[in-house]
């Protein structure tokens, strides 16, 4: 059953349409990932769901409550960890988290136990009485995440769960997010890290310029790109344009991306069968191969495919 439904959800800031007629349902108990380039409208969408900003048009139903008509009831079900930590600099993590837990209605024993647990797990226990003013960016982000992990709302929204966080911390937080799901929360994340989205999400939605481009499970999305397989080749010499055109004409090759003049990425179907043909092709054209690597497409490729933002483009 859908726990969140967005119907033509739209937000305009003056002339800019930050979120443009978004239609999406999020199922109870899933981890749902929002992907999209900077400025795509991910954060704006999430802020509308937690009723911090009001939609310009359309609506969203959160746990049965219309966010514009019954925002107070919707907020009882939902909690958010913000992209930028929202902490008053004069306070300590201890105060921030205890106050948050009280406001969210935890009993005193739950509060004590969970605050201690979150601070310990996130390596903040020793610094719990320091003012957040003296914290590094990653430490502040940990405090922000701790809020939602303590709250354990029915619907947990996490905007960029692990930006600024070191690699050990990332893995801890990913595990904690999975545990939160196991305890029955529905989780919505927004992220720019495709690896993170792939790792955690049951389904992802890719947004671009306020619009939804596609929404499905990571696996299906990867399968959906034509030329589902991928070969990366680094040559000893630069490949001339004509060679690339010829390469594209080989049966089953779908697309060739020139990452660098001597670095090609070939999208194709059933790579293992035509790999010999491709190596032969380069030998014939007198372009010795330095390295060759075959892989399945990642969410990166899905992202590039749908947003039209290619690495090729990024490197220009």
């Amino acid at each position: 059953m859908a726990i969140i439904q967005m119907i033509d959800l739209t937000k305009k800031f003056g002339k800019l349409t930050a979120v443009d007629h978004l239609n999406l349902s999020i199922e109870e108990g899933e981890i749902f990932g929002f992907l999209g380039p900077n400025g795509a409208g991910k954060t704006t969408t999430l802020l509308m769901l937690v009723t911090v900003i009001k939609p310009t048009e359309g609506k969203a139903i959160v746990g049965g409550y219309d966010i514009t008509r019954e925002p107070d009831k919707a907020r009882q079900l939902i909690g958010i960890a913000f992209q930028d930590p929202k902490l008053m600099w004069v306070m300590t993590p201890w105060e921030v988290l205890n106050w948050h837990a009280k406001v969210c209605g935890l009993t005193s024993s739950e509060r004590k136990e969970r605050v201690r647990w979150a601070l310990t797990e996130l390596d903040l226990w020793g610094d719990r009485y320091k003012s957040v003013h003296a914290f590094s960016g990653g430490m502040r982000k940990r405090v922000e995440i701790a809020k939602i992990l303590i709250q354990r709302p029915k619907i947990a929204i996490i905007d960029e769960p692990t930006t600024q966080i070191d690699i050990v911390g990332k893995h801890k937080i990913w595990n904690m997010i999975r545990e939160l799901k196991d305890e029955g929360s529905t989780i919505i994340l927004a992220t720019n890290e495709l690896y993170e989205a792939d790792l955690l999400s049951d389904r992802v939605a890719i947004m671009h310029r306020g619009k939804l481009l596609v929404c499905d499970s990571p696996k299906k999305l990867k399968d959906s790109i034509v030329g589902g397989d991928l070969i990366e080749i680094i040559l000893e010499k630069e490949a001339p344009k004509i060679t690339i055109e010829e390469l594209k004409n080989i049966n089953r090759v779908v697309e060739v991306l020139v990452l660098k003049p001597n670095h090609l990425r070939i999208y194709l179907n059933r790579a293992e069968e035509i790999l010999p043909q491709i190596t032969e092709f380069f030998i014939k054209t007198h372009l010795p191969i330095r390295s060759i690597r075959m892989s399945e497409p990642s969410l990166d490729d899905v992202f590039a495919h749908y947003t039209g933002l290619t690495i090729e483009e990024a490197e220009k």
Partner: protein
Amino acid sequence: MIKHVLLVAERDVKMFLQYKFILILRALWFLAQIALFGFVANRMVKEDVQIVTGNYFYFYAAGIVITLLYSMAVFISYDIYEEADHGVVEYLLSLPISRRELVLGRAIGGGLRSFLYVAPLMLVVLLMIGMTEPFRILIAFVALFLFAFGVSGMSITIAVSIKSHDRFDILLGVLNAFIVRLSTTMYPVVFMPKQYAVLAQFNPLTYAADIFRWGAGLEATLITNPFLSVLGIILFFSFFTFIGIIFYERRLEGGGWR
């Protein structure tokens, strides 16, 4: 409902305690006002003033402590601006509490913290003047708490309406100039030109100063019946709490703070 309001208020009180520097300096300011200005002004004012006010020094001390209560209650807005800068406003709006509980809690918190801070200074003033009427003092304190609560509500209302820290600073400076000087905090109403005196009679600061002087037993200068002052204060705080809630809901949603 009450629990949420109190939690919000508690947070504002705690936050206030962090501003040790400001708290110490404001106490020094108060000391300078009475020990220097009040003392010298008392020697300067002529006999006819003393006839109206009794000892002018007492009259002044009782007035200036009320202006301190007022300015500390206004201070809540500075927290609101700081929070806007740190994005904390959005955090507060995302919590499972209603907007009404949030504004009410902040107005109470803002009022309570200024009251708790100024109460010892009020006691000092009362000790100087002589505490003859404990029951009146009690009533005065309750009324002054409501006054501080109303001032916080007013401050929040103005802050969320103009949403600009710089403008708020300037506006507040001007507002203070008028609201303090068009009240009986520093001079008795009989010395005011008629037009000023009329305005002073509709000024919550006048009511607050009056009720405090009534509590302190400085009766000669009261401009109204003390119960009308209490009524004035109640009207004042109810109005701004109500307006504050509406403004907070209207202005803070739909596009964030900026």
